[in-house]
């Protein structure tokens, strides 16, 4: 019978940007289990001790050298060597890595796998979960196989290994929580009500300071040209907590969190808000358990006070707007319903899903506290027993229910090598009615590889400014909120750049470098054939494009685009809405239900209609 593994962690390390270990924790009880299973495993040879901090750091640096970066190549490239992670040829090896530890006393080189690699801020978090010796052997075989790489769906693949190892998944959860703690990001999802802009988390509900603590109003996500979209929707909300840089690693609180969340290396409750509430509040004699019901492990405290239920719908709009006949625009919305249930006792909340149009909403997943009817999530209603504080009740992916908030086109044409003429023609909130309100809208033209000297031109609406590598057009500012009407605007202009300077890419790329460098003679030839300035420039500039990380959707710098960032309130674009009347609570109490909506832009991109653009095939069902 195969052993069903839980999730245990042998050790974890946190490294700083200089690749020095700043924090480490070993769990001898788990290590004892590892050694025991190695002992009963015939094929295991000598079992190496866990690496010391210095050995681990050395191995990590070694891997960094071998694999080009801390994360590594991920997929097999010509530089990959046998025995390394990228030899396995799977992008996930950028997250689940192996290290070859050279023990100081022995000359032998031991393979340790799997290390969960999570990078947060300047820190690298490495977590080593417990697996069976045969898993390690399988992986070792995989990264040493001499052939050209596995076919999909083979028996000894990484996929079946990962499926069999929940400890890896658990270790990722641990790593992410630790990352949030060290960066001070561990906060609860945001819930906004009309009366008080934002409400605090679990601690606030314990101290009863709702409405009193004037929290900073969430600001719109700053426009980052190429940030990944893997931060959660609420993650774009900046907190008032001290941020990166000024922050030093609070090792003591980290240590106490670890001891409490995963005594003996086995995670029990990774909720940081629960931990910090217990740590700072403790339990008093007034915290009596209910007499009739058990108190769940995820709800150490019960709420006392004025009762109400708050919902906030958060939506993020991602769009690729092409304005071309042959490529359809694509708009997708990822949304979530944040909730804060200030209810006494352990009531159940009945939440109907009727507000969802199932043709437009396609993914729904729920908080673990929700009881989902077995037929499937899209129908009927769910019942949930709310935890304390703010929490994400459900998440969904949706298509745009009404037209896109910003339509139009962006055209940029290089009239000479250092001068571009551009034209925007946009219509905002076309066909939108109140209460949909656009609070801010900014269009940014990023030119990360060129230095902007000046620009020329006046938009019909809004103001324009430029930074060194971007031109920013503020159409709507928070002082001039637009509600219930549409705006048509154009912005013709020119932008002048500093002369192009060839920057030889220096970072280690993915593909083949060096072989092509000698072709300078062919380059010379080719430039003579190109008559078009734009093509010529394109060709010239694409020569020293750097390869992007696998976490990026494409090479942003290869394209010209404008990025729109906006914030809307009033209604959800997916037409998701909550009817306060349909929500019922058992046992019945009189508690008001409020809800608010917030729509933010994610990657909302207007591709240069005259240039190249990345596309994907939209499947037609």
């Amino acid at each position, binding site marked *: 019978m195969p052993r069903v593994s839980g999730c245990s962690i042998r050790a974890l390390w946190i490294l700083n940007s200089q690749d020095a270990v700043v924090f480490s924790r070993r769990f001898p009880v788990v290590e004892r289990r590892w050694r025991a299973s190695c002992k009963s495993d015939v094929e295991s040879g000598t079992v190496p001790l866990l690496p*010391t901090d210095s050995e681990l750091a050395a191995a990590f640096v070694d891997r960094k050298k071998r694999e080009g970066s801390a994360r590594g190549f991920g997929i097999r490239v010509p530089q990959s060597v046998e025995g390394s992670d990228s030899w396995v040829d799977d992008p996930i090896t950028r997250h689940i890595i192996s290290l070859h530890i050279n023990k100081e006393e022995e000359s032998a080189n031991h393979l340790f796998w799997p290390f969960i690699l999570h990078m947060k801020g300047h820190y690298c978090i490495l977590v080593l979960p417990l697996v069976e010796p045969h898993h390690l052997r399988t992986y070792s075989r995989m990264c040493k196989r001499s052939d*050209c*790489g596995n076919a999909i769906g083979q028996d000894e693949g990484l996929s079946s290994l990962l499926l069999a190892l929940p400890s890896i998944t658990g270790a990722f959860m641990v790593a992410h929580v630790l990352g949030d703690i060290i960066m001070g990001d561990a906060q609860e999802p945001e819930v906004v009500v009309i009366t008080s802009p934002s409400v605090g988390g679990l601690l606030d509900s314990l101290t009863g300071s709702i409405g009193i603590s004037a929290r900073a109003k969430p600001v719109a996500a700053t426009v980052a040209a190429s940030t990944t979209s893997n931060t959660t929707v609420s993650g774009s909300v900046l907190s008032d907590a001290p941020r990166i840089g000024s922050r030093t690693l609070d090792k003591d609180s980290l240590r106490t969190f670890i001891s409490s969340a995963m005594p003996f290396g086995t995670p029990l409750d990774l909720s940081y808000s629960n931990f910090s509430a217990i740590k700072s509040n403790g339990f008093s004699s007034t915290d009596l358990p209910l007499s009739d019901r058990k108190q769940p492990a*995820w709800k150490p405290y019960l709420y006392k006070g004025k009762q109400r239920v708050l919902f906030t719908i958060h939506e993020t709009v991602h769009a690729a707007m092409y304005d071309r006949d042959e490529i359809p625009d694509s708009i997708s919305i990822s949304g979530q319903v944040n909730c804060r249930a200030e209810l006494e006792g352990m009531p159940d909340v009945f939440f109907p899903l009727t507000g969802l149009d199932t043709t437009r909403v396609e993914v729904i*997943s729920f908080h673990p506290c929700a009881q989902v009817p077995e037929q499937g999530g899209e129908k009927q209603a769910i019942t949930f027993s709310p935890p304390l504080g703010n929490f994400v009740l459900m998440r969904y992916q949706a298509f745009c229910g009404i037209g896109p908030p910003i339509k139009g086109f962006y055209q940029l044409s290089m009239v000479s090598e250092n001068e571009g003429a551009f034209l925007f023609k946009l219509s905002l909130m076309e066909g939108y009615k109140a209460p949909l309100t656009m609070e801010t809208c900014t269009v940014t033209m990023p030119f990360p590889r060129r230095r902007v000297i000046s620009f020329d031109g006046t938009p019909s609406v809004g103001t324009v400014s430029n930074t060194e590598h971007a031109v920013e057009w503020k159409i709507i500012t928070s002082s001039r909120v637009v509600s219930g009407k549409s705006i048509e605007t154009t912005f013709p202009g020119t932008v002048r750049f500093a002369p192009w300077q060839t920057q030889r890419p220096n970072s280690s790329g993915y593909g083949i470098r060096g072989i092509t460098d000698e*072709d300078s003679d062919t380059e010379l030839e080719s430039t003579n054939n190109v008559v078009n300035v734009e093509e010529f420039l394109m060709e010239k500039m694409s020569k020293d494009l750097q390869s992007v990380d696998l976490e990026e959707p494409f090479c942003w710098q290869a394209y010209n685009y404008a990025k729109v960032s906006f914030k809307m309130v009033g209604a959800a674009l997916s037409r998701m809405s909550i009817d306060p009347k349909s929500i019922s609570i058992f046992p019945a109490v009189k508690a008001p239900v409020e809800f608010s909506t917030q729509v933010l832009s994610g990657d909302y991109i207007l591709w240069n209609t005259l240039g190249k653009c990345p596309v994907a095939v939209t499947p037609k*069902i």
Partner: protein
Amino acid sequence: MAKPPSSLKPLSPQEWETLMEDYQYGGTRRRRWTSANYTALPLLQLSLSSLLRKDFPLNLKLRLLVFLEEEYLLAFEESGLEIEQTLTLILDALRPLIQAPIDGVSITYSLKDQFMLSTTSIFITATSDAVPILPQLESLIELLLTVINRPNHGLDRQTRGVACECLRELERAFPCLLSEIAGHLWGLCQSERTHAAQSYVLLLAGVVHSIAMGKANVSILNTSLPLVPFNFPQFLLGENGWGKEISSSSYKELRRVMSFLLEWPQYLTPCGLIEFMSMIIPVAVALELQASLLTVQLSGLIYSFDPVLCHALLVLCSQFPDAFDGQEGEVANRLVLMSREVQHYLVFRLLALHWLLGFIGLLKDGEGRKKKAIIGMRLSFYPTVFDSLSLKSLKLDLLAYCSILVDASMSPGGHAVLGSDVIGSGVSVVKLLEDGLVSVSGFKWLPPWSTETAVAFRTFHKFLIGASSHSDTNRILMESTIFHTSERMLVDMVLEFQGLVPVMVSFFDRLFSCYKHRWLGERLLQTLDVHLLPKVKIDNRLGSYFPVFDRIAENITVPPIKLLELLTSFMFMLVEKHGPDTGLKCWSLGSRVLGICRTMLMHHHSSRLFLGLSRLLAFTCLYFPDLEVRDDSRIYLRMLICVPGNKLKHILNIGEQLPGISPSPQSSSFFSQSFSVSHESKKSRNISSYIHLERVASLLVKQSWSLSLSSVSTGGNEPSYLEGINDNEPPYEQREFDGNADVRTLPEMEITGQRQEPLRVMDSKISEIVGILRRHFSSIPDYRQKPELKIRISCSLRFQSEPFNRIWGFDLPANTLDEEDILPAIYATVLTFSSSAPYGAIPSCHIPFLLGEPPKSDYSLGQSDSFDIVSLENGTAEEYDFKAPVMVELEPREPIPGLVDVYIETNAENGQVIRGQLQSISVGIEDMFLQAITPEDVPPDAVPGYYLDLFSALWEACGTSSSTGRETFLLKGGKGTAAIRGTRSVKLVEVPATSLIQAVERHLAAFVVSVTGEPLVNIVKDGGIIRDIIWKDVASDSAIDVTISDPNSERGPLYLKYHDDEDERGSQVHFNKKEMGCFLILIFLPPRFHLLFQMEVCDVSTLVRIRTDHWPCLAYIDDYLEALFCV
């Protein structure tokens, strides 16, 4: 109990920090402390005393506890510390702390919690696998049990939870430790209502798990035993407690506990649930519970956005596949949706796709319908624009998997499995690939190092190798749709985007390095050869295709003809377009073309390349604008022509490992040794015993003269023997050679110093003779000015492999297919010659390549063993391959035999230089024999007549009473002069006429100027060997002959004497002597001498009359004639 050494001074908080950090850092920093005795028991005692100090900050205490826990194994156990002693120490410290009331400053819950955790951890790590019968352990458990035995107590609920965890960990380490108090634990679970209940439940689940797994025969409901004091279960100490099976009573009890436990999942945290399931699932399997009991509680997890919970459900699925029968589609669908949830961290989206692949892998092979459902999901696998590249690449993997499934359904066997509806639905693998690649379509124009490119080619690979795994043996269908599509796409792509060439090359390399898919790469190269080469434009951009050409060139399965043609026309283009500013480009492209040629030479059989490549190289070395390229191509051309097969590959194989060619020690040592140092004189000493330079035609006279000459030559370099022997008659010629004085004055002096001859009146006959001679001499080149007269001696160089290898220490691979591989070779051999004999400067010989002779025995063995391999050609090749022809050219100053010393300098395969002296070549007098030079104005048909006249003239001039004695003749060029000093001799050879004629025909045919006497003429004419001479009948010409021959012949005293000596034996001969006729033979001896024979042939003996103007040669002639006729 040992007291701590007094030397160990207490540490301040800062020092503790440093100590703990250094311990974790390891290495020298750690040793700093251990060497100062801050280790083992003293350190433990020190830490425990610090823990109890009130002035220490709480944080440090907590840290210290964690430190003790982490380092216990290394710091304490290693040192052979008594376990019981340490455990007692720790327990004694823990007990008062637990019982102390909370004061919020020095005693807090967190300190209690941490102390319990650390103590438990140390107890577990300190003890071995077997249950330790330690009273300390009993005490610890008892202490923990007292902590947990206060359910619903409000204030310390967290601490009670921690104590439960400690107990659970002990139970996990020592299974069934708490089995006998399971009833109490259950009771506690039921009554606990705070959030700490999770820990109680997990503790109970842990105990139940070990009971069910160990099949312990205990009653769970029984609470007769008290909770405290705690005692080890007796059955753990003996053997009888472990049941073979779960008894029916405990089975029922276990089921009851299970149904209680299964109420709990909704109250557990996600991590707690994972832990819970990992204990519950094995129990459920052991108890053979209905899986539905679990699924009812847990199947909702799939809708959670917590990745841990989703994974937990997947674990459940893989444990109870039957319970989820029919729901696989829903599970797979949820996984796809999870991968599309942008709120997740990227890694969980990647994991979801991996789980999906793993999950599909779990579906049984027979369940074709389920896999078909995967094809139905294909549309949701399409990557979207904003998916990260890693996600795109995994989604493309899934599309590749779909294509495998579709392909399988297309194959004949697949119809039955998947049914025709799938095929009918028009799923095209090509469409899957093409649509999928759109998401990374930038790879075509982005630089080749872009990540998009890497992902795209990874996808190509996945689609291409398809279902062909490396473990099974079946081959993929070469004719599969996907294969043809890929072929086409690759060709089109590389035609349009040259930037992709290096990427494609590394793609090929990847296939080539695979034992299984090598042939795929070869096939693709063949495709490129057929479809790409005709389409590429021949211009300067062709250079970007060179990496591909290189691969084509090195692949033996691709015929090189097309590529050679392409490169040839490319070279034409380069030559044609050559202009003033193309120099560097020309050089670069030209050398790269030659690089490809080199690659071809290394990998293909020379015969396959020969025609095309030699044309290309010849063209290049003649017309290419760049000198270096011309030079290189000349070298390659020479190599192609001179060096055979594998040896050529070895030469060219610099620093690379060729797949077909064994990694030879030569190539590696090629670099490690420099050329200059490798000369080893010791090894070179006996070089002549296995490297031989031999004459092709052996000398008739073999031994004697070479010996005498070599002894003379040791005396000095000057050939002084002439003076030594012949000082009464010093030939002026000799002086002339030795002294470098004025040529015209010297002869005068010599003549005056010579024996006086009576002056003769020059009659018409003599003047005619003189005329002929003048004409003759004027055509003889003066060697001092124009060295035109050369003696050529054909030789051959060979060497024996076996001694060569032995001495030079080559260990050539013995098991190579090709015979040539095991033979050594020498390269760039230079033979230099020198001689003490007056032969002038002898030009050296160069031999580019020579293969060693196979050992005789081995070779014959090889032939007899496997004549299927060693064909007839090999037999002929032996002659050809193992000997190099060498032509030794001499310019003799004097026609005498001598020895030519031979020195060799050559290179072995590893670059070692071999130098040494070979055996000398002996030069015989017959080597000096040349035909007389014919003046240019003599027409060809008059040559025989001219020769006869010349013969007659010389014959006359060389007579002792020659009237031409004082005459000097100008040599060609008009500066040097020569005079004739004749000498005569005779020799009677007693051989039958027939053998004489044969000997003449064989050795002297070229020099015969006339044959007289009818019988002889008839015989010789019939032989047909001697031609184009003057034939004369005896009747008509005998008189003239006699007169010409020698008026003094009858009075030659030697002649008569000779006959008298031979009288007794010779009379009969003399009587029977029957004159048959005469050979007249004219031999020119370089530099300007002559040897004349008149052979009067009789049937049993022959009289040879000899005249010469170089008397020393007579000494050799005698021996020569003996050898010639007496063999």
